[in-house]
């Protein structure tokens, strides 16, 4: 655990990717295989379940620290991270502990099954035997909220570097439906044996936003254009006579999409499709928030299935007849994909249409229609491109339409987390509705650090009321909010929900009276599909 805590400390205190990579390599060189497997599980989002709810944890931590609960809560608001707050308020450890990461994971599983009083005894004892750094990691494991500032790609690169392997091979091997109980480090990462995991997905190929002019891409005839859909990127797999659905975050989400089971008898065995999970009705996609509410539900009622019926809009073929197709050119993959979908002949499986264009001018014009067809722009893919691993430049580009914008007034704020702890960075924005400001949306990103400091300092001087961690702020500052789409919503006071809102600019040139009205905002409902 010491070594693992040290790794987390090094990673989170470093700002340079190379230093993080070195820290990971050092860990892989030094740690035991069992610990490495757990580390890999934790770093790739295979988190253990929460052992204890955070309310109890706060109470016990405050008790052990000898401080009132309100003081603990205030500390939490300032630190911005529960695991860290607990680690910091507790008294110095009274004994040593040299259990390994694997042993702690076993302890966690066991403790989770105990009755509450015993669970408390165990946790308090653990706290008293761990240093601040180790406690922090331990608390992260307890609360199940284990997120690290390291991309999966970096972990893959570190493994590749340590063992002299190709990173694309590592990426494929560590994907899929494994847990530390179902495999070993040797088997998962180092063994050449054929995998027995039928659900295993391929790593996704991701594109960057186009940042050069179209002319620099070369001849239009070498490129293919498709609409960029606003759903969930997914991989649909049929192997061993079973359907599996993976999200881009490599989460196995098969159960969330019962519609796709209808394809079981329409697809041949040994196929993997890359495409978009989209709610769809009457030949057009439905707004994203329908999908979002559906994903959040535990039980998919008939009503939900009717309101947001899903289709899979496929745009790539990664495997056919159990053969890895990723090294074949896109044109060939696309032909095979089209055939496959035609043969399947099922309305739940659609082929993402090609956007025809003779030259770049035509394509530029077509991009303007993106919102009308319910997409967020175009995807440009080179016809001879292979299917790569991870985010790569060159052969694939996304070319999104410019965001919709409105000017809003900042009316409330809350302190951020992590590197924004202690700083008001999470804002609530409002627009005018008949002389009153009505809350419209929240946004957290888009300002520079310097702007955040300035806005933070304004907020601290202009707090009107406190509601828990939320502060209402004297309405004065105006921001241009950009967003990708807008839909009606009963859950929001304003009656609309924005898709991916963020701050584009701080309009220091504008008075609050010049912000947009709800009427302006609702008018945008009609311009988008």
């Amino acid at each position: 655990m010491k070594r693992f805590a040290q790794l987390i400390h090094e990673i989170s205190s470093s700002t340079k990717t190379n230093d993080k990579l070195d820290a990971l390599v050092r860990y892989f060189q030094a740690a035991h295989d069992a610990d490495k497997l757990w580390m890999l599980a934790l770093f790739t989002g295979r988190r253990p379940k929460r052992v204890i709810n955070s309310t109890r944890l706060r109470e016990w931590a405050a008790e052990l620290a000898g401080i009132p609960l309100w003081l603990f809560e205030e500390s939490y608001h300032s630190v911005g991270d529960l695991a860290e707050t607990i680690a910091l308020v507790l008294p110095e450890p009274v004994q040593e502990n040299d259990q390994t990461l694997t042993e702690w994971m076993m302890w966690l599983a066991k403790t989770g099954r105990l009755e509450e009083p015993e669970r408390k005894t165990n946790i308090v004892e653990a706290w008293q035997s761990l240093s601040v750094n180790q406690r922090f990691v331990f608390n992260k494991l307890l609360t199940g909220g284990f997120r690290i500032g390291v991309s999966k790609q970096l972990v893959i690169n570190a493994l590749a570097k340590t063992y002299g392997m190709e990173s694309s091979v590592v990426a494929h091997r560590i994907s899929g439906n494994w847990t530390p109980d179902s495999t070993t480090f040797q088997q998962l990462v180092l063994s050449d044996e054929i995998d027995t995991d039928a659900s295993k997905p391929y790593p996704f190929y991701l594109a960057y936003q186009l940042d050069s002019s179209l002319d620099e891409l070369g001849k239009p005839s070498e490129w293919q254009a498709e609409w960029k859909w606003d759903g969930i990127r997914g991989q649909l797999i049929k192997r061993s006579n079973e359907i599996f659905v993976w999200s881009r975050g490599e989460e196995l989400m098969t159960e969330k999409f019962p519609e796709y089971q209808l394809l079981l008898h329409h697809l041949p065995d040994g196929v993997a499709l890359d495409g978009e999970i989209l709610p769809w009705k009457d030949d057009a996609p439905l707004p994203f928030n329908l999908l979002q509410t559906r994903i959040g539900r535990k039980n998919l009622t008939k009503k939900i299935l009717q309101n947001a019926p899903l289709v899979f809009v496929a745009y790539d073929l990664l495997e056919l007849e159990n053969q890895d197709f990723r090294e074949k050119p896109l044109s060939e993959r696309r032909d095979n994909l089209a055939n496959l979908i035609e043969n399947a002949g099922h309305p739940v499986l659609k082929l993402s249409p090609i956007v025809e264009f003779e030259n770049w001018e035509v394509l530029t014009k077509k991009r303007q229609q993106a919102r009308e067809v319910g997409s967020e722009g175009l995807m440009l893919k080179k016809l001879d491109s292979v299917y790569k691993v991870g985010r790569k430049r060159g052969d694939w580009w996304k070319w999104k339409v410019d965001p919709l914008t409105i000017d809003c007034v900042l009316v409330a704020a809350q302190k951020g987390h992590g590197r924004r702890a202690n700083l008001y960075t999470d804002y609530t924005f409002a627009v005018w509705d008949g002389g009153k400001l009505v809350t419209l949306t929240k946004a957290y990103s888009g300002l520079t650090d310097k702007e955040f400091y300035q806005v933070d300092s304004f907020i601290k001087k202009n707090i009107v009321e406190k509601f828990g961690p939320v502060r209402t702020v004297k309405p004065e500052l105006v921001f241009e909010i950009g967003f990708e789409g807008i839909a009606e919503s009963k859950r929001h006071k304003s009656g609309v929900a924005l898709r991916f809102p963020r701050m584009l600019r701080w309009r220091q040139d504008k008075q609050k009276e010049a912000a947009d009205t709800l009427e302006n905002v609702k008018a945008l409902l009609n311009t988008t599909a």
Partner: protein
Amino acid sequence: MLQFNENGIYCPDGNFYIDPWKPVGRAITTHAHSDHARPGSKHYLAHRDSSAVMRLRLGADISLQTLGYGEPLAINGVKVSLYPAGHIPGSAQVRVEKGGEVWVVSGDYKIQPDGVCEPFEPVPCHTFITESTFGLPVYHWQPQSLVFQDINNWWRQNQSAGKVSVLCGYSLGKAQRIVKNIDLGIGRVFSHGAIFNVNETLREAGLDLPFLPKVTDGFSKKDFEGALIVAPPSVGGTTWLKRFGPHSLAVCSGWMQVRGNARRRNVDRGFVLSDHADWDGLLYAVKATAAEKVFVTHGFTSIFSRYLNETGIQAAEVKTEFGTEEEDTPNTEKAA
């Protein structure tokens, strides 16, 4: 006996202010940081060891009277004396007494001796005015010897990795503490110009500090090999650092205790080293004065005063214009 008005902390009987934020007739200055020692007052009173830096910062020609620790002075019938605050060289708590009633203004203070300034001394009083910069129970300082062990190790590691070590700390107080406690046997140490000026001023005034050459264009990359550079935090992200070639940038500050603050600074290393009292230090100081009433100034004022009230010590928060210095806030982007 003391009041809070728009100019600062005021003593009507003695007709003087303590650390006023506006120009006044007579100002008693707890220490030379710029949020406590502001320009424009007619007369100043401060500890002897504060005078050199006060003259450096407020002007050589200010009217300044100095006292040693514990030396009494009567001002319009009010007895005034200074006691060590342990914050920076010359920092003092101000004890004010009239008719048997005693108030103490802490200024900024820390409990742990730092090897540079006279250590903090609790002064019994009826009313105590305390800072609360780190008044949250998440702030606990390690013994300074452990922190300097970490710093020395970091320096050695940088040496073997072929990197110059740039260590940032506020130029008055923190920088001298670093210079005085670092292992000078590891390699050469240079100072940034801002720190050089303060160091030399303090050395001339008699403070026992080693001489550190100033980083100038006269030195080449070769001279800096394996060296430690002591610099103010404002050098972060500037081209001034380029002259050293590969380097590791670290900051010494109490705010480094919290990861979010440390990450925001965008430095390679954060060392938790503060010239303010931590949570336990604040509580110790309040209890050691045996004060019946406590006023809480800059920092986590509302939280600390609420906690004191709940533990049976009558406390109230006071709005001041202190706490605008580098060390006082985690969100500073530039520093003096």
